[in-house]
């Protein structure tokens, strides 16, 4: 756990330190990774200690971090290689940023992501639960996305990063699906429990298959290998880390961790064998034909992890141990080779085999180190690579077919490793090594080569780690040099000879092979991926085209399915019962008349000729509805409805004023009148069915009676006010926030200059705001404004005993201001405080509401509880009782007033259209 925590801290520290000074990020990440590595080493000597924390209890999920041999091996690998790569990057990155013409402040992101990557790997290695495994598995995909696409100004880097994310990310989801299947079949996602009691039958095949596909994609195995070579656009340290200890290793790690689940399905194990065999042959062959250094290495990685897949598919204890030995041995060699490629490019500027050659004399130390690393990949003694091949052959001793395939693959790896080394360091010198490489870049290379050589001479420690990782207690891996003709030695010798022959006969096969591979390009998975992506793009373009064409299509796309669903619900909810007809008493006649008038006015508004008529009829319908509300026993709603209706109408007319007349006239052209009428009729019928059905329901039980009883304890006689300010105050707070956001939008739209192709008329064009009212209206308005403010205050204060509340108070004041602006014009009152300070008043009101809502938390009371508490005594000011709900109401009033007046202010400031 400590390496995980330290790497996470390193990532956070790199971000924080880098924000101040970009140069400070590197030491933070380096220090953190060094500590993580030290912790990982120290843990090897401590007793095993698993960590288990409660996580998602309702799903029976635990946060399990294991400390077994496998976890130790991979944590060691991730933090050790991570540290060395970071040391290398210290020398690499500044130069890289200079070359890419990027500022130094882009460096901290790299360091933080590298440390986060190491943390993700450490977490993955320790995770003891399938869901947790998925989490870290996906985290490595996300980190790799950003690191591969680190040179974000390059389209190729972005495309490669997206490709890697899509392939490994989609595959990672399969792992989650496997976890869900395991949970539903076996009742647990904990790996230890699943291993003890593996699933059977179809579930076993499903789980094993899903995990295997996720791992194959991550480890870049055929046919999901194509993302890896393209990911080579990443900075060199990232490539080195991806290939040796992080991203690609995560795939085979997944298989090792869940091996009991894989073993439960022999078919999947067999498939792994085939996939691994295909990968090692394809990867080895293609590596022979590539020219770019990093491409050769990428295909080599595909081939090398193919071996591991073959071993895991074989599944014997010896094979598992051989797999656990193979991964770190390969990591040492592959990481060193990538770093060498970076050093060579740095010193010569060349990154292709055809551009390099004969560098052995110019950089002897690097050449020797590269030879050791290449020998490790090729499996030559006396490097650690020899034992990885020896164990490979021994692990497959009972499978003849696989042995021959693996021997062929070993021959290929000898050939491409020799070709790579000779192409760079051997032969005639074709390019000068002029530029120097810092020691921080060559140091890690030499260290890795020394490790590969040292473990080649004394393989004991690594063998011990591998045996622990494979989890076999009674069986030990005992690699050593045996000078006899045992099977593994014969196969190795055969591979060396074959490899040498392949290299010697290079001229014979290289051109035809290249031609052959080029001919196959149309069939490659890359091609399929590109076609698929293009197809998706076209589909999205087509959808976009459809959408852009017409707003009505979009409305229909929402309204029609909604209507159908509603009708389906009504039908399923019992079509037969529930449509009741309630009696129409004599007292209901006024209500019936008003409702009929409101409905008719609404219909008339819909068919009106001009916008002005539409606005007036809409307002009239609103006022009639307000009367209906009053008759329904809702005086508060009626009051606010009248006020809001007035202000809405004023706003509509004020906005209409901004449009030239011809535009308005042109807009009322009617297109498909018959179709629109039909749609309207359909909507009416649906709404009628639904609302009749709902309004027929009557089971009498409602929370409202409780609210009515409780209102006096909240020191409020008006139950509606009590609900708004106290019982359901959160709704009100949310509503005020919505209003704030809408008003912010309005303010922005009204003040920012118009962009667009043909917009931007000079300010002041058109008529100035009209002030054509008579002296009398001006005087009346001036007298009205203070009066409305008084009325508003009265409504607010008395709201808790009589109809009216914060909304009503705010809107009354708002109406006063609107009338005043209408009467005297905007210019004369522009500087008055009640207009100028409107945004501040609105925000202050919202802030007051939030304060009243959160203040009780400080005293340990629940959110939005008011003081004094229910039933308590309140202070009185005359007949007015004082309590915090009143403050909340004041906030509502201020918010409504402020935002509304701000809107009117902005609208009035816009010059009228001609």
């Amino acid at each position, binding site marked *: 756990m400590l390496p995980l925590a330290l790497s996470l801290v390193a990532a956070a520290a790199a971000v924080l330190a880098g924000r101040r000074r970009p140069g400070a990020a590197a030491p933070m990440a380096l220090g953190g990774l060094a500590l993580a590595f030290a912790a990982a080493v120290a843990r090897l000597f401590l007793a095993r200690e698993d960590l288990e924390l409660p996580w998602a209890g309702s799903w029976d999920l635990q946060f399990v971090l294991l400390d077994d041999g496998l976890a130790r091996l991979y944590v060691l690998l991730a933090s050790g290689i991570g540290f060395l790569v970071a040391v290398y990057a210290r020398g690499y990155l500044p130069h890289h940023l200079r070359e890419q013409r990027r500022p130094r402040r882009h460096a901290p992101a790299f360091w933080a992501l590298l440390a986060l990557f190491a943390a993700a790997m450490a977490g993955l290695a320790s995770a003891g639960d399938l869901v947790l495994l998925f989490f870290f598995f996906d985290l490595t995909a996300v980190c790799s996305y950003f690191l591969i696409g680190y040179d974000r100004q390059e389209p190729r880097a972005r495309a490669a990063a997206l490709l890697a994310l899509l392939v490994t990310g989609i595959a990672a989801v399969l792992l989650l699906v496997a976890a869900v299947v395991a949970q539903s079949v076996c009742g647990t996602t904990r790996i230890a429990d699943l291993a003890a009691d593996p699933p059977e039958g179809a579930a076993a095949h499903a789980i094993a298959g899903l995990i295997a596909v996720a791992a194959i994609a991550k480890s870049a195995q055929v046919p999901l290998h194509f993302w890896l070579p393209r990911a080579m656009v990443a900075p060199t340290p990232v490539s080195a880390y991806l290939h040796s200890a992080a991203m690609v290793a995560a795939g085979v790690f997944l298989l090792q961790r869940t091996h009991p689940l894989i073993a439960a399905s022999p078919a999947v194990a067999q498939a792994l064998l085939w996939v691994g065999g295909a990968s090692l042959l394809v990867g080895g062959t293609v590596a022979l034909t590539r020219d770019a250094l990093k491409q050769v290495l990428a295909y080599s990685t595909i081939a090398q992890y193919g071996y591991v897949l073959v071993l895991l598919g074989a599944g014997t204890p010896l094979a598992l141990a051989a797999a656990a030995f193979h991964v770190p041995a390969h990591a040492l060699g592959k990481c060193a080779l990538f770093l060498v490629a970076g050093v060579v490019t740095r010193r010569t500027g060349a990154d292709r085999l055809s551009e390099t050659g004969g560098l052995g004399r110019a950089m002897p130390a690097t050449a020797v180190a590269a030879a050791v690393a290449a020998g490790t990949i090729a499996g030559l003694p006396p490097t650690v690579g020899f034992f990885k091949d020896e164990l490979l052959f021994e692990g497959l001793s009972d499978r003849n077919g696989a042995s021959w395939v693996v021997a062929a693959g070993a021959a290929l790896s000898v050939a491409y490793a020799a070709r790579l080394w000779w192409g760079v360091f051997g032969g005639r010198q074709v390019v000068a090594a002029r530029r120097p490489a810092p020691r921080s870049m060559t140091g890690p290379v030499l260290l890795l080569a020394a490790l590969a050589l040292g473990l080649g001479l004394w393989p004991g420690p690594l063998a011990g780690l591998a045996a622990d990782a494979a989890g076999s207690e009674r069986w030990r891996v005992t690699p050593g040099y045996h000078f006899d003709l045992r099977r593994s030695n014969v196969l190795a010798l055969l591979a060396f000879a074959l490899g040498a022959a392949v290299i010697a006969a290079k001229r014979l096969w290289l051109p035809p092979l290249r031609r052959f591979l080029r001919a196959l390009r149309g069939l490659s998975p890359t091609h399929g991926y590109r076609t698929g992506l293009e197809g998706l793009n076209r589909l999205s373009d087509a959808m976009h085209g459809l959408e852009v064409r017409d707003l009505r299509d979009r409305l229909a796309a929402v309204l029609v399915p909604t209507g159908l669903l509603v009708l389906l619900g009504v039908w399923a909810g019992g079509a037969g019962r529930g449509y009741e007809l309630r009696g129409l008493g004599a007292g209901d006649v006024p209500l019936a008349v008003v409702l009929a008038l409101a409905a008719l006015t609404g219909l008339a508004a819909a068919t009106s000729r001009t916008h002005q008529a539409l606005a007036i009829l809409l307002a009239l319908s609103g006022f009639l509805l307000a009367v209906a509300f009053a008759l329904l026993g809702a005086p508060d709603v009626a009051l606010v409805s009248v006020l809001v209706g007035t202000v809405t109408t004023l706003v509509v007319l004020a*906005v209409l004023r901004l449009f030239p007349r011809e*535009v308005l006239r042109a*807009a009322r052209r009617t297109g498909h009148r018959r179709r629109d009428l039909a749609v309207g009729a359909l909507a*009416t019928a649906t*709404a009628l069915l639904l609302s009749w059905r709902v309004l027929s329901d009557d089971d009498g039980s409602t929370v409202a009676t409780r609210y009515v009883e409780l209102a006096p304890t909240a020191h409020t006689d008006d139950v509606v006010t009590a609900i708004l300010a106290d019982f359901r105050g959160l709704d009100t707070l949310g509503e005020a926030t919505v209003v704030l956001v809408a008003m912010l939008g309005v303010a922005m739209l009204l003040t920012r200059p118009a962009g667009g192709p043909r917009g931007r008329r000079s300010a002041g064009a058109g008529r100035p705001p009209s002030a054509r009212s008579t002296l009398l209206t001006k005087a009346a308005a001036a007298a009205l404004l203070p009066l409305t403010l008084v009325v508003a205050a009265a409504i607010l204060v008395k709201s808790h005993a009589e109809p009216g509340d914060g909304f009503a108070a705010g809107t009354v004041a708002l109406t006063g201001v609107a009338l005043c602006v209408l009467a005297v014009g905007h210019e004369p009152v522009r500087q008055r405080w009640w207009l100028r300070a409107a945004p501040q008043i609105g925000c202050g009101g919202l802030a007051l509401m939030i304060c009243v809502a959160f203040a009780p938390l400080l005293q340990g009371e629940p959110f939005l509880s008011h003081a004094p508490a229910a039933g308590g005594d309140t202070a009185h000011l005359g007949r007015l009782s004082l309590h915090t709900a009143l403050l909340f109401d004041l906030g509502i009033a201020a918010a409504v007033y402020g935002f509304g007046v701000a809107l009117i202010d902005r609208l009035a400031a816009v010059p009228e259209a001609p």
Partner: protein
Amino acid sequence: MNLLLACAVAALFGAGTFLMIQRDLLAVALGTTMIGNSAILFTLAAGRTRGAAPIHPLPEGEVVADPLVQALALTALVINFAVSALLLVLIWRVHRTHQTVDLEELADEEVLEETRDEREEERI
């Protein structure tokens, strides 16, 4: 009575929908407002009880109107107003940039712009 309320709700909703599918963007905005009105009426009508205003002291022996739906309706009213204002101003901006509030003209212009952008991209 309930059928009558349902009829009023339905008529307003239908009128609003009719306005919303016009070519005229301003009608779309006002149609939204009308549908909002219909929703508020529906909310109030859905109250479990109908009767006197729910203000203490309560009238003896009379049914009190459901206060909960009234609170909901009040909230909806103010939000309806804010959204209508936002829509109207948005349409005004559309007019400033495109000189039209006709949906079909707007769509044509958008397609034109898109092809122009694509041509420019290709040139780059």
